[in-house]
């Protein structure tokens, strides 16, 4: 609970500063936002942005968690090191490059953008799933097995709940990077809030720039906060208490 309040506090401070900066600038942002021609565009770009993020995160989460779980099972354990290294390599590659590479092979628009975002978001989730499940104390698994729980039961009732906190951290990291990278997707023709930012920069129109930059920032901070809430819902109280 405390952590949530702190996060909220942080967000409020940043929002405050942002608003302060804006009003200080008198950059005409307010006019821009209230312009009936501009306003719907901004909303639409927001929606595009959210669309890219949610779609890619959904894919990345499913693939990432599944991969993470599979790599912990006996059969695939030897591939774990290699797999993690390869995926890790993928994350070392700068986000812009990933988008550019996706564009080279898949053309422009939302499709390559979502594809690139998915690939880019898989690593933190997969790596943390692997680490989280591996970190579950082996005696819990032994107790579960000894009591007659099937492997699937053990996964659902013991391994995943106990690994959830770590997995969520991976999810959070992936989500925040995702939102930031989605802002870049504009350059490969995918729209999103990056449109406003890039246009603002090249045309030296500060109001447009801020109209893009501030929502993206708010989005990222809000996503951080949301993940924290998710944690409260998904992570068992017993585990939170033992921190």
């Amino acid at each position, binding site marked *: 609970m405390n952590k949530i309040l*702190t996060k909220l506090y*942080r967000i409020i401070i*940043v929002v405050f500063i*942002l608003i302060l*900066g804006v009003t200080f*600038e008198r*950059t005409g942002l307010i006019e821009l936002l209230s312009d009936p021609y501009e306003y719907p565009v901004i909303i639409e770009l927001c929606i595009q942005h959210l669309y890219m993020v949610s779609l890619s995160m959904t894919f990345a989460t499913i693939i990432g968690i599944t991969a993470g779980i599979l790599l912990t099972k006996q059969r695939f354990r030897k591939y774990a090191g290699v797999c993690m290294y390869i995926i890790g*390599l993928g994350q*070392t*590659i*700068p*986000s*812009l*490059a*990933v988008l*550019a*590479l996706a*564009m*080279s092979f898949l053309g422009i628009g939302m499709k390559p953008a979502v594809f690139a975002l998915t690939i880019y978001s898989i690593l933190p989730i997969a790596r943390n799933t692997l680490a989280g499940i591996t970190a579950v104390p082996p005696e819990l698994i032994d107790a579960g097995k000894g009591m007659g729980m099937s492997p699937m039961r053990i996964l659902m009732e013991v391994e995943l709940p106990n690994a959830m906190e770590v997995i969520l951290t991976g999810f959070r990291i992936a989500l*925040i990077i995702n*939102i*930031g*990278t989605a*802002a*870049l997707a504009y*350059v*490969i023709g995918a729209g999103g809030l*990056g449109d406003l*930012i*890039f246009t*603002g*920069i090249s045309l030296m129109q*500060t109001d447009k*720039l*801020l109209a*893009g*930059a*501030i929502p*993206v*920032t708010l989005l*990222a*901070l809000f996503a*951080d906060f949301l993940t924290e809430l998710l944690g409260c819902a998904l992570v068992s109280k017993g585990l939170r208490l033992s921190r």
Partner: protein
Amino acid sequence: MSTLQFIMDNFSQVMYLCWEHIWIVGIALLIATPIGVALGIVITKHEKFASKVLNGANILMTIPSLALFGLMLPILSIFNMGLGKVPAVIALVFYSQLPIIRNTYTAIKNVPPALVDAGRGLGMSRWRLLRELEIPLATPVIIAGLRTAAVMNIGVAAIATYIGAGGLGVYIQQGIARVYPEMILAGAILVSLLAILVDGGMALLERIATPEGIRVQRKLSR
């Protein structure tokens, strides 16, 4: 491959852009490291600031890089430095703070207090302790933080092209604008290679910096 051809044809330009890219990242790290490490050391001594500082750095890193550029633009424009390498370096310095501060903090905190106690009991001065015990033990973790920061910075620097900072991102930007696939690929591949090389190099540095004793300890516990 035609991309390879492209790189060879424009070799001097490639080299220049590489150099530009490395320069930006290098300067940023040069500035960010002392600040980050110093802050990290300070908050180990003054716990109450620890969470605030770490939170602050966390927020900085949460802000998407492009947005950070965008936010700095109007402010720096006042000094006529809104575009170009300056905002790029400043943003990179901000971004590097979290990994460096956090790793420094964790590294020093993780030095077993029992060892510090033993050292003090033997009569080592505070300064000596820092120099002969805490820093050698903490260094590998700090370098790991630098590694994270370096790789991240290479990525952000690529984006910085769009605010006029130059670097390998130029190939990507220009390539898209001129619909020149070989250029795009060249840019993407080159910057990726740079990132992988730096990552590997820093991993090596990390290993070298790990005191022999710890390396053996890690090997045995495997």
